[in-house]
Structure formats: C-alpha cells, structure tokens
C-alpha cells in the first residue's frame, strides 16, 4: 500500500510517500510496524493524539481496518483557512 506523510510528519520521517508491504490489520498495527523500523519513525509516531490518519483520502481512525485500503496518509491536525 502507499503510505503518505504530510507537514512535520513528512519532515521527521524524511520522505513524502513510500510503498509499504504489510499484513497489518488496522492503522494502529501499521503504526506499530513503522515505529519499530527506525528512530525517525518512532519520533514521528511518538504521540498519536497529535496525528490524524486518512484512508483512501477519507479521514479515519487509528482503530480502522486496513482491509482493501490502497492509500494511507498520516499528518498533524489540519490548519487550513
């Protein structure tokens, strides 16, 4: 699946998107896998309450299932307007 990062999540991880092969059942499971990879991921995902997630470009929750999802995006709370 494609995993996208925006704003300071992108800056901490150091790339805007990557292809991730995973069997994670939920967003939270995927986050655990990413955290375990490297310090920069652990730093980016240190506080989930400061993060939001979108599944296939719809806002979602960290306990949502990943079944059938093609694009996951992580980012801080939005600051448009």
């Amino acid at each position, binding site marked *: 699946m494609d995993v*996208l990062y*925006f*704003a*300071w999540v*992108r800056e901490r991880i150091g790339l805007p998107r990557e292809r991730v092969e995973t069997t994670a059942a939920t967003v939270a499971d995927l986050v655990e896998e990413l955290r375990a990879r490297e310090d920069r991921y652990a730093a980016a995902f240190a506080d989930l309450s400061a993060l939001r997630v*979108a599944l296939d*470009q*719809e*806002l979602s929750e960290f306990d949502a299932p990943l079944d059938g999802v093609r694009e996951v*995006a992580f*980012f*801080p*709370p*939005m*600051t*448009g*307007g």
Partner: protein
Amino acid sequence: MRISVQEAPFELGAESDAFAAGVNNAGALVTFTGVVRDADQGGLQAMEIEHYPGMTEKALTAIAEEAMSRWSLADALVIHRHGRLAPGERIMMVATAARHRKDAFEAAEYLMDYLKSRAPFWKKEILSGGSADWVAAKDTDEDALKRW
C-alpha cells in the same frame, strides 16, 4: 457550486462579482476572505501552505455539498491556495448566496469552520532569520465544529 484549489493568486473583487452574477433571486451574499497576517511574534517572511492533492478537492467538495444541503443555498464558492505566500496575500475565500441573510452567514461560517479543521492543509510560518514553525491547530477551531 465551485471548488478551486490553486497555487495562483485570485482577485477578491473579480471573484465576488462573478459569484454575484451567477446567482438568481438570492437576497443575500456573504464572502469571507482569509489573508496572511504577521506571526504573533512578528517577522513573518512567508507562509507555506502544504496540502494533500486529491484529498483536498474531495474534502472541500464534501464540505460545500453539506453546506448546500443544510441551508438550501443558491450557490457556494470555495477557493483555497497552496504554496508560498507573502504577508498580506489572500489565502482563501468562500462565498455563499441564499434568500435570507441568516442562511448565507451561517453557511459561510460553517464552510470556514470545516475547512479550517477538516480540509487537508497545513501552514508553516517562515520567519526572518530563517526559522520556520508549523502552525499548531487551535482547540478553539476544533471546538467551533461542535456548534453545527
């Protein structure tokens, strides 16, 4: 209904006139325009607005459609820029048209509240001296959604 996510500047006056010309028998038109203002501590050099191409258009369309149905608007417009903006430049505008002023005002405020906190834009303040800070989301903006 028109949604535009663009890097280019827009003309407030021309957009207002075009919006007004496109509606029929609406007694009330409201516009809101957001402008880059200085950082709280001063010294803003630029505002960088990042967004999520694809999701941004979907989110803004969904927000505007919800406003159109809740208030039976004659029309609605959302323009939001991304990229690097200087202080004083216009970031975005919304416009609403309705028979009565209450609907036009409420719908414009609804659009603003939702696009502040539910459309995938992120602002970064570039300060003189070279430092840069991501603008933090405000609790008051999240709270503003609760009234709808």
